[in-house]
């Protein structure tokens, strides 16, 4: 039914959005690439000079980069593992006949709506504080030494907070997928006397495969850029213990004013994210045709 006239209209209507997004993407990104090739420090204005790939060389050979890359991968990987496994368990539980399901569901999604700065500070000060935190009290009551979470296990603490924020997302999506499982398939499996474990591994898990992929990809995109939780709890420390790539680039730009170096780091972050994005776009694109 798309006549030539309406096709033309459709293009006109979409044009403003495409244009602003194009500018938003290409202008700053182009500037980042250009800055990354310069010696450019905000504390030393007027002395910008072209130095080619030197910033990349510095950034990529800096031991801080490897620490940050390792932290980033550990953070993303751990949070994915916790939220996927936890999310499947929570979703399976929520799919059971339970009283007050609606209320429990609200409890479970709630953390997703908490702004990152709030969840980070509440966990740090009310729960994980080594003196007044609830965890310290639990440890003491059970006869253990309270743990100073952010000094002794800083990255683990950040992982815990971020995982708490993303568990609801995984659980909600997996539950939605779970509920679309064919009831007849369930009954057929029951009639054939399939045990709960085989049922899970041969029927439920394959059915969830697509949803799990979606969760992994979307979470990865956001988790690569975790920033606020680190910013308000540890400031990247102690040392570099909780510095991820995003925080490293931020520190280089706005704390050390090294525009050139930070830009090179930013481009490295973009390349990393693009590897994930390529998979994501293909997956969603496939779905779009169906």
């Amino acid at each position, binding site marked *: 039914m798309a006549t030539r006239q309406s096709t033309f209209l459709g293009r006109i209507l979409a044009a403003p959005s495409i244009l602003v997004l194009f500018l938003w993407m290409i202008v700053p990104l182009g500037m980042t690439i250009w800055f990354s090739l310069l010696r450019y420090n905000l504390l030393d204005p007027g002395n910008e000079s072209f130095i080619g790939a030197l910033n990349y060389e510095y950034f990529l050979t800096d031991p801080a980069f490897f620490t940050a890359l390792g932290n980033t991968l550990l953070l993303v990987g751990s949070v994915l593992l916790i939220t996927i496994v936890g999310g499947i368990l929570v979703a399976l539980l929520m799919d059971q006949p339970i009283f*007050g399901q609606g209320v429990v569901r609200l409890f479970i999604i709630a953390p997703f709506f908490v702004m990152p700065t709030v969840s980070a500070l509440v966990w740090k000060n009310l729960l994980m504080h080594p003196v007044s935190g609830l965890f310290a009290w639990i440890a003491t009551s059970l006869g253990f030494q309270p743990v100073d979470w952010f000094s002794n296990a800083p990255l683990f603490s950040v992982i815990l907070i971020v995982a708490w924020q993303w568990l609801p997302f995984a659980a909600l999506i997996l539950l939605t997928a779970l509920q679309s499982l064919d009831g007849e398939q369930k009954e057929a499996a029951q009639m054939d006397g399939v045990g709960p474990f085989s049922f899970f591994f041969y029927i439920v898990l394959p059915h969830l495969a697509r949803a799990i992929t979606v969760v992994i990809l979307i979470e990865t995109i956001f988790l690569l850029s975790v920033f606020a939780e680190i910013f308000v709890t540890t400031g990247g420390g102690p040392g570099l213990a909780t510095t991820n790539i995003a925080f490293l680039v931020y520190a280089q730009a706005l704390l050390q004013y090294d525009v050139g170096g930070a830009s090179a780091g930013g481009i490295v972050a973009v390349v990393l994210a693009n590897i994930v994005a390529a998979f994501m776009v293909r997956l969603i694109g496939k779905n779009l045709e169906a």
Partner: protein
Amino acid sequence: MAVYSVRRQVTMTILAWIVGLAIFFPILWMVLTSFKTELDAFSTPPQFLFFHWTLENYAEVQERSHYFHHALNSIILSFGSTLVALLFAIPAAWGMAFSPTKRTRSTLLWMLSTKMMPPVGVLVPIYLIFRDLGMLDSRFGLIMVLFLGNLPIVVWMLYTYFKEIPRDILEAARMDGATIGKEIIYILAPMAIPGIASTVLLNVILAWNEAFWTLNLTTSEAAPLTTFIASYSSPEGLFWAKLSAASTLAIAPIMVLGWFSQKQLVRGLTFGAVK
């Protein structure tokens, strides 16, 4: 179906409530702490329910730190950016849903890919542009950034909703001689409003909680609640109760909106890949 035994249902119910409460506990604990005196908030063993309930933290949060100034900023930023995004996205999604071309699919995917660019990749130039244009700590600048950041999601969500409007109705209206204007006002708009409403809801939630650009581009004047709460991270004294009161106020409105939007959430956040 009575296949499930009562015993199993009871066991599952107990288990589910334990898990649910455990996940919700940090929020519950924060709300409880917000009603304590600073002394009770810091006491060991912790006080669960039998403490001196007080509202003084809520009063002090406002008096000392202009809570409402920041709350107003959060409202302006989240609704402002959503509104601008709608102005751009409704026509775009309408065009792509009702007169698709060969390139519509790749255009949509390209839009999506802009969302996947990590913000640190463009932090430096955006910061410098803002500094040079005097837009650091300005609401206008932040609305623009939030709008552009969420535009792909808004277009996508609207597109998936518009796509579900049956085309037969449109064709029938055209046969009856409806102009494009009438078609939009009398037929499309009423059918699209639920979709638009849930898009607004999700986008407001995302913008309200956005904490990369707000932390980096605002300090006080345009600072929304994310930045305001972050100011409690400085270790000057132990203000757990006030932190809790401020946090409770900051998340309460969005929690309510979020609970209403939970059905749309899955669809919006997965770009229609899981429904």
